[in-house]
């Protein structure tokens, strides 16, 4: 790629005129903000990785756009020995993009790599440590022997670190080759990768699920919100994967593209500091602050309506969601009465800490100060650079009265959020909750019974609601901007859009 660039630069220097690359027929171009920069499944947690990775790799299990688990590289599976053993019947006759066969050895290699030294340097391993070992029963059957039942494991096998990788390719070509030129079994194979710019894929005619309709699929990495929008408007890209909420009206008015959205995993909330010498140490103050804010108005004003109010830190797709749990109402008068009862004088200052990188949340934060002013609380905004916020402010317990929390576990299992926010000692729980909460969270993690887990997770959500540990703001929809030339686009809640059945016209 460097060579291509050097040649291009030389051509530029000599003043030669080169034309832009013509867009091949049947090629769809996606714009997304981030370049994951490394395509090894064990070395990433980025949505930007999985949105392209979902078209290059397969897991044993595939999760469809309705979040149902479907056969992937495994045709079927059984849960044995009370969840201590998972048995998979593998699909036969599948090959990787390099021609290498997919078999039980590849499964074993993939997970031993993930749980061994290579995986140890990456962020994925910790999601899969409940796997003790992989046993090959025969060429097309493997057993996962667990060291503890893991109720979310089947879902986790459909994403990220569990993508099946080609043993021979990695051993022969080396780690770096795999990072930059990944090989999987998916519907598209990698043609070229230009770091920071684009990933070019072509259809895998031998895909086990049938050859894709498209000839090619290109991901372009464009950092600026306005530039991604301009590329869509000028026809340079066909789908924008992370269109800014503020750009929704522009896309809808453009006439050459439309907005497609589905409920997503991301929730936004304001966490309260419930301890120490702050007004929010009083549960009445926390409840009052929640009731001071018209959350539906925030959704209408800043998300262009593409979101839903929530009562806990999960949307309705999440396992553990409780439809019976109602959000606190918007009631400024009740809020003022509660504040007075708690002895909070009008004009009391409080501070909101939030991540400065999110322009939508910056607007929401401005509006929050207005709602708080309405009930006599003077909120000061403190935007903080991302890494500092994630490293120095939250885990160290250096926040003020309120701080932003945004989370969207791709597993859509409430455990993924709840454990992190409510269990003692977790990074996003710097001030502690209660022993009772810890016990609930630990019990559901050990349980292999989905009904019991669901009951406990609902209890966790209700307890957090009653204690008003946070103000759940909204559940964001996952929003795509799609050009009119695209047909059969299937929006995925987790941005892992599969393009094997999508078409483009012209």
């Amino acid at each position: 790629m460097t060579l291509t660039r050097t040649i291009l630069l030389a051509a530029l220097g000599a003043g030669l005129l080169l034309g832009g690359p013509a867009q091949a027929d049947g090629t769809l171009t996606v714009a997304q903000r981030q370049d994951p920069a490394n395509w090894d499944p064990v070395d990433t947690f980025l949505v930007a990785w999985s949105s392209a990775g979902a078209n290059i790799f397969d897991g044993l299990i595939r999760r469809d756009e309705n979040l149902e688990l479907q056969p992937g590289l495994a045709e079927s599976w059984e849960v044995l020995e009370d969840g201590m053993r998972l048995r998979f019947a593998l699909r036969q006759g599948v090959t990787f993009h390099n021609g290498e066969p997919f078999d039980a050895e590849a499964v074993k290699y993939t997970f031993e790599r993930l749980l061994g030294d290579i995986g140890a340097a990456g962020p994925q391993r910790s999601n899969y440590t409940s796997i003790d070992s992989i046993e090959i029963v025969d060429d097309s059957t493997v057993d996962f022997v667990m060291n503890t039942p893991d109720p979310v494991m089947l879902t986790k096998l459909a994403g990220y670190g569990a993508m099946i990788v080609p043993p021979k390719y990695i051993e022969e070509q080396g780690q770096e080759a795999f990072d930059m030129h990944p090989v999987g079994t998916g519907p598209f194979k990698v043609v070229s990768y230009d770091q920071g710019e684009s990933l070019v894929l072509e259809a895998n005619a031998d895909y086990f699920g049938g050859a894709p309709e498209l000839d090619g699929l290109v991901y372009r990495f464009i950092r600026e919100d306005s530039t991604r929008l301009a590329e869509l408007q000028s026809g340079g890209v066909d789908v924008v994967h992370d269109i800014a909420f503020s750009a929704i009206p522009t896309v809808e008015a453009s006439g050459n593209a439309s907005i497609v959205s589905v409920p997503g995993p991301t929730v936004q909330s304001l966490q309260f500091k419930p301890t120490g010498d702050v007004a929010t140490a009083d549960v009445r103050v926390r409840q009052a602050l929640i009731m001071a804010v018209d959350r539906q108005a925030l959704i209408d004003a800043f998300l262009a309506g593409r979101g839903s109010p929530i009562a806990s830190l999960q949307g309705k797709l999440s396992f553990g969601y409780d439809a019976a749990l109602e959000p606190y109402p918007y009631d400024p008068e009740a809020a003022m009465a509660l504040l007075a009862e708690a002895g909070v004088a009008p004009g009391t200052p409080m501070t909101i800490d939030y991540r400065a990188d999110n322009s939508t949340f910056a607007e929401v934060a401005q509006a929050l100060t207005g709602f708080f002013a309405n009930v006599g609380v003077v909120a000061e905004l403190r935007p903080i650079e991302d890494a500092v916020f994630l490293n120095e402010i939250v885990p160290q317990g250096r926040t003020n009265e309120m701080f932003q929390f945004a989370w969207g576990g791709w597993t859509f299992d409430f455990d993924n959020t709840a454990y992190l926010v409510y269990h003692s000692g977790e990074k996003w729980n710097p001030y502690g909750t209660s022993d009772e909460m810890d016990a609930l969270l630990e019990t559901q993690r050990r349980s292999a019974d989905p009904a019991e887990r669901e009951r406990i997770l609902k209890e966790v959500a209700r307890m957090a609601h009653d204690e008003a540990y946070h103000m759940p703001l909204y559940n964001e929809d996952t929003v795509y901007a799609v050009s009119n030339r695209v047909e059969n686009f299937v929006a995925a809640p987790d941005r892992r859009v599969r393009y094997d059945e999508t078409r483009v016209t012209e």
Partner: protein
Amino acid sequence: MPILFYLSKRALQALLVMIVVTLFVSFAIRLTGDPAVMKLSQAANATAEDLARIREAMGLNRPFHVQYLDFIGGLFTGDLGTSFFRGPVAPLIATALPATLLLATTSLLVSLAISIPLGVYAATHRGSLADQAIRVLSLVGLSFPNFWLGIMMVLLFSVTLRWLAPSGFTGPLSLVMPAATIGIILTATNLRIVRTTMLDVLSAQYIMVARAKGLSERKVVYKHALRNSSIALVTYLGLQFGGLMGGIVVVELVFGWPGMGTLAIDAIAQRDYPILQAVISILAITIVGVNLLVDLTYAVLDPRIRLE
């Protein structure tokens, strides 16, 4: 060999600048966030052991001076190290540096091509309608924030007229909007420098002598006056270069230009120390190099100036 002595003195100076700058940047960036934490920030079940393992794999468990000396040592042997997220650093720089330099020099040339003739014209027709118009235009140019100008260009030329692709680097046409964005802002300032210094020089006695000798006005203006006023312009360009690099960062982001700015911003966001250290060192060397070039140019422009 005074020139060799001079050059080696300047090279030593450059080295010192680079060490001070990288030492400061390497130290400061480590105070603001841990890349291992960034790597694990979305991993729901990560434990303290996971964090320790990743820090070890990144070499972050070593004392700061060891990490820094490792980096400086590598720099001298041409090894720029390995990014925490993106593989070896050298190829990244090898792609990004030419892209940024291409953008910088094109913008600079565009701005000189416009600002010198216009500035000279304004100075020689002082107070005329054209002079007034040029001054107003340059003030307008100065008042544009570069990111705004970039976005407006995209709206006009890409979205409305559809003449140019809004972003990326696919051919010479990709260079037009980013270079124009930076060029317009540079032109605005350069125009004012050229006009002011030309006015100054044109009132000097030797210009009167030149005119009295009966030289053509053209020769007086372009040979005598412009040459002497260009010393101020060259000085200014040298000083401007550091700022130009800062401005390019923003413009690169707007146009998705794969240069050093984009590389640096991503590295800062991820706390990718190896990339950041390399980018800063190379920019420091470039800036020191450009200023050396400026000093050498003085001697060419005015033989009375001696390099010491």
